[in-house]
């Protein structure tokens, strides 16, 4: 190829890549602007801190916000320690054989299982077999199961990115394997682990299918006061308001307001992830 045609190819290639980026950005912006445009008017402290009234045509989303928060906390408490521990075992202790290869592949596949399947599994295991009933805890654990593969994979990747020489350095100084993991490897990997964990959990916070059969309910006048009670959740509330309500046109602003709150919640979670990352990155060198 001549230099000129090479330059032309490279020019077109670059433009094409740029175009793809712009298209992606445009869609994201479009969705965001649409939701902010139509939801911002609804947003107020009243909307956030009052219960739905008059057949959900008025009032706010307080019970749904509390419900989603409680479920997300349960999800995090269950899935983060279990997921990180599993990843540490797989990456640091388990020998690399056929069994662990199959195990890893299965974990990756689990990340691709449709969330409705997790919902059904949650009914069978938590609601029925373990008799936890339709409750915050059943839904939290179901979402936790769904989040586990993400956390395990993200943690394993973070652990793998810690150079082998750091492990050897710690061991050569007389550290035991566990000491090396605790004092050198996990702190080095914490940024990646935190990001993976919070992204996984925030994805769970927006899920509807897994909580559908395990505890979420259509309408409550109060936020859940115990872990074994049914609850309202933002994504399900949004679904009801946008498709199942008897006066869809009338509640449309409420639906957009709910969507905006849900997005803000996830943005807040991601900002927390960002702050934790930076904090650890700084602490690491102290």
């Amino acid at each position, binding site marked *: 190829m001549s230099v000129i045609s090479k330059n032309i190819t490279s020019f077109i290639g670059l433009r094409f890549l740029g175009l793809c980026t712009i298209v992606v950005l445009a869609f994201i912006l479009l969705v965001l602007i649409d939701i902010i445009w139509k939801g911002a008017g609804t947003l107020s402290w009243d909307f956030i801190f009052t219960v739905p009234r008059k057949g959900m045509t008025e009032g706010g989303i307080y019970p749904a916000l509390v419900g989603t928060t409680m479920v997300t906390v349960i999800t995090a408490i269950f899935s983060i320690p279990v997921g990180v521990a599993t990843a540490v075992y797989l990456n640091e202790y388990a020998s690399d054989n056929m069994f662990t290869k199959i195990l890893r592949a299965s974990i990756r596949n689990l990340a691709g299982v449709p969330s409705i399947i997790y919902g059904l599994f949650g009914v069978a295991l938590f609601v029925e077999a373990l008799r936890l009933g339709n409750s915050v805890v059943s839904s939290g654990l179901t979402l936790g199961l769904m989040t586990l593969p993400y956390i395990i994979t993200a943690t394993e990747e973070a652990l793998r990115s810690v150079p082998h020489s*750091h492990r*050897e350095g710690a*061991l*050569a*100084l007389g550290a035991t394997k566990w*000491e090396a993991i605790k004092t050198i490897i996990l702190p*080095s990997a914490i940024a990646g682990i935190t990001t993976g964990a919070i992204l996984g959990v925030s994805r769970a916070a927006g899920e509807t299918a897994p909580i559908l059969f395990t505890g979420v309910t259509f309408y409550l006048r109060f936020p859940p006061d115990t872990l074994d009670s049914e609850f309202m959740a933002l994504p399900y509330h949004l679904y009801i308001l946008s498709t199942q309500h008897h006066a869809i046109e009338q509640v449309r602003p409420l639906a957009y307001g709910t969507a905006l709150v849900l997005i803000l919640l996830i943005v807040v979670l991601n900002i927390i992830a960002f702050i934790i990352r930076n904090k650890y990155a700084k602490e690491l*060198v102290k």
Partner: protein
Amino acid sequence: MENKIEIKDIKLSFGTKEVLKGVTMQIPKNSVVALIGPSGCGKSTLLRSINRMHDLNPDVKITGDILLDGESILQSKKDPTEIRRKVGMVFQRPNPFPKSIYNNIAYGLKINELDKKVDVKQAVQSALEDCYLWDELGDNLKRSALEMSGGQQQRLCIARAIAINPEVILMDEPCSALDPISTAKIEELILRLKKDYTIIIVTHNMQQAIRTADYTGFMYLGELVEYGTTQQIFENPKEELTKRYVEGNFG
């Protein structure tokens, strides 16, 4: 002279691949011993068996024995962490932890619970002084170790190793990633540390062996071909193979 380490007929294989085919050698106390030989001759493998770094690899099979002050370190049920406290190691590439300079050195003290017995601040300072880093760095020990130059990082790794007061220091091609000036500083350091430690250094650089080592062992294909004083090995080798290698006519 008193032997610090005795290596007795060490045979080592990775799976089916035999890497060491029966190596026997004595390392005198407070001496510098260089191991030279072409890549893949097993010198690093031999070095890493002295602080039991092969424990990590389940495929490694090892027979024979290594004695430290007359005590077996391979065959006994002895805790490898105890051996590694006595036998420090410096690696081919500088591998400071992503921590501050201070904490890189304090780490070994904490891990070995020496921080209750000694003044950590004082220990950090004297380790840095021993490695000519104290004056260079001044009081700026809160900086990340990763911001230092490669040569400083490697000296920090040496400081980290000597801070826990080992008896032996293993160095696996410690200068191969460094520039000539940093290399000269490390060599100077090796000569100075000899007073307090027994040092075994693996090197590809024959000049380095001549400059630093009291004794030199030439290894080839998993065997120790010849071992003697550095002067004898380089000026008057007994084996034809050694002669060809030190004269650079290998092949």
